[in-house]
């Protein structure tokens, strides 16, 4: 067995040891997901900029097609086409607020990945664990296609395709395909596919589970097989466009980008696309024949096709918007899939919130009024009525509420406020509110990034692995 396979085997064993209580065997799910040949085929790359502290360390790792920014330390790990984006890490001297604690940060925060395998995964934001404010750790963890590990230290976990763990520390958990968890801290939990769970203990608890049969049309993952379903097909169909971008040394996107906006060198744009002031288009985003109004953004693995975004719209990591018209200040959560059709477009009114991991896929025109919150699986008008509420009505929930497959306990006002505050924070962080001198964010800072590439051993026992590399200012 070559060194790369030995390493993969060892990572899987470590995850399985952590998950033994849940009787979950990772190996049948993931052993064939990283073909050894692919690991030597793609280069890895990293960004350097005056706005982000730089410290990259790679020891005994495979990094094919992966991207790094900021302070990252990797040991005994395999990454395949993953993004480790350390541009929101805490800095020395920052104050981290957690409940009634004000925690001072003693050194620049670092993303530390150890004994883990991440496949087409995004790692972003910063550790929300008050016990480790300077270390965003990912240890003994395997994640699969288009998973998001967002501000969530993880130990001994498995994430299925399109799973998102957000602002949550997790130990020894299995997160099923297309599940979204934001719960502060979780331990020894097996989350079924299609579970959307947002909990702030003592404040609110939101739980929705996608109907399994319908979800399987979109994502289906069984041991021994590659992930399947419409979401995977959708990504595969656009893979070639990205391949071209990665193969070119100098990329001309052929689209005008205002000075206050940022179009990443590793994004794909297709005619006829308009990018307005303060727009952020991140790497691996795909924009085709769309209008992005002032302050709109498209984060990693977002697809915006034949759509119009009025302005200040947030398209969170992995969200897809097709044949849709969005009013101002619409928030579309992680990995949501919103698809209208050419003759029956999807319209979403201003200031609406589309919950993370929502699927809206209608073959008839569908219109979501302004100021609504929507969630779950929506394939027609009836589904929309079952899975939406005016935000004002939701805010009035005081104790408990259930509708269709949604269970909600706690304060609707606290829940809505938490989302609205976060939306405001995202707009600020992304530079949507930049006024020419103040409120700079990613859209402005990311213009100053240059990229370097690194390569693995091309042959021999170490084929596909990288030598130890330390990159510092």
């Amino acid at each position: 067995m070559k060194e790369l396979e030995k390493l993969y085997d060892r990572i899987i064993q470590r995850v399985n040891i952590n998950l033994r209580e849940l009787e979950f065997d990772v190996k049948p799910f993931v052993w064939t997901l990283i073909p050894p040949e692919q690991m030597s085929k793609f280069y890895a790359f990293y960004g350097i900029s005056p706005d982000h502290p730089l410290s990259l360390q790679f020891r005994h790792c495979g990094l094919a097609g992966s991207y790094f920014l900021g302070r990252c330390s990797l040991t005994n790990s395999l990454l395949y086409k993953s993004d480790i984006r350390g541009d929101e890490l805490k800095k020395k001297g920052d104050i981290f607020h957690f409940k009634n604690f004000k925690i001072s940060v003693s050194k620049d925060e670092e993303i530390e990945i150890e004994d883990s395998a991440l496949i087409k995964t995004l790692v972003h934001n910063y550790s929300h664990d008050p016990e480790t404010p300077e270390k965003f750790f990912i240890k003994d963890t395997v994640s699969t296609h288009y998973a998001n590990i967002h501000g969530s230290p993880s130990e001994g976990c498995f994430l299925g395709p399109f799973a998102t763990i957000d602002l949550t520390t997790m130990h020894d958990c299995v997160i099923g395909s297309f599940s979204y968890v934001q719960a502060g801290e979780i331990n020894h939990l097996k989350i079924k596919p299609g579970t959307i769970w947002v909990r702030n203990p003592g404040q609110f608890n939101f739980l929705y589970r996608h109907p399994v049969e319908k979800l399987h049309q979109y994502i289906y993952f069984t041991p021994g097989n590659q992930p399947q379903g419409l979401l995977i097909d959708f990504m595969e169909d656009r893979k070639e466009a990205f391949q071209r971008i990665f193969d070119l040394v100098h990329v001309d996107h052929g689209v005008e980008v205002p000075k206050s906006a940022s179009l990443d060198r590793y994004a794909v744009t297709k005619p006829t696309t308009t990018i307005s002031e303060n727009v952020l288009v991140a790497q691996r985003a795909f924009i085709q024949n769309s209008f992005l109004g002032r302050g709109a953004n498209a984060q990693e693995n977002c697809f915006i096709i034949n759509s119009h975004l009025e302005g200040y719209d947030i398209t969170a990591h992995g969200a897809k918007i097709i044949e849709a018209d969005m009013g101002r200040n619409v928030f579309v959560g992680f990995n949501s899939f919103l698809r209208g059709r050419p003759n029956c477009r999807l319209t979403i009114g201003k200031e609406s919130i589309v919950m993370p991991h929502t699927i809206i896929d209608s073959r008839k025109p569908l219109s979501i009024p302004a100021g609504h919150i929507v969630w779950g699986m929506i394939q027609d008008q009836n589904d929309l009525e079952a899975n939406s509420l005016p935000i004002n009505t939701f805010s009035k929930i005081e104790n408990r509420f259930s509708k269709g497959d949604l269970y909600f306990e706690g304060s609707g006002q606290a829940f809505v406020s938490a989302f609205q505050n976060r939306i405001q924070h995202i707009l600020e962080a992304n530079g949507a509110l930049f006024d020419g001198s103040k409120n700079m964010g990613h859209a402005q800072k990311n213009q100053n990034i240059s990229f370097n590439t690194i390569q693995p051993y091309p042959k021999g026992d170490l084929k596909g692995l990288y030598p130890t590399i330390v990159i510092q200012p």
Partner: protein
Amino acid sequence: MENYTVKDLMVPISEYATVSEDATLYDAVMALEKAQEEFDHNKYRHRAVLILNHKKHVIGKLSQLDVLRAIEPRDAKIDEIDDITRFGFSEPFVNAMREKYRLTGPLIKNALDTAMKIKVIDCMQAPSEGEYVGETASLDTAIHQLVMGTHLSLLVTRKNEIVGILRMSDVFAAVFHAMKQSEKKE
């Protein structure tokens, strides 16, 4: 009280309600009723049925709670509501969801016919390690096992054979009696 052993307070297995592993829930309920009729109500009030395999060895116990659990109507929605307890919802919330669904969902009385045909082996509780106690063990030991395991009864063994059942109600009666004796002495 310190002179009592488990053997002194146990109900001999020959006097206890038993059914074979092939029996249905209905058979078990009938066996329990028959056992109640045959013995002095004040002395032995049976609250469980022991399940025997073909070699007449005890393989499980069917309590009143097990019977009630078995006749509760179950469907995917009820399972879903039960499952949300894992996600940190409060007990009042889960109960409210159950009650809300009960108004539109299946009723217990409609589920009775189906439930009575269930095999006892599918709804019994197999005894855990802490549910066995030797017949010569002291009452103190038995009380400790009942408290620590929150058991309603213990299976009493002689070598590898189960010879009786020690019920919490009999242990409590003995403790109560000892308290009264102690009070009189003082």
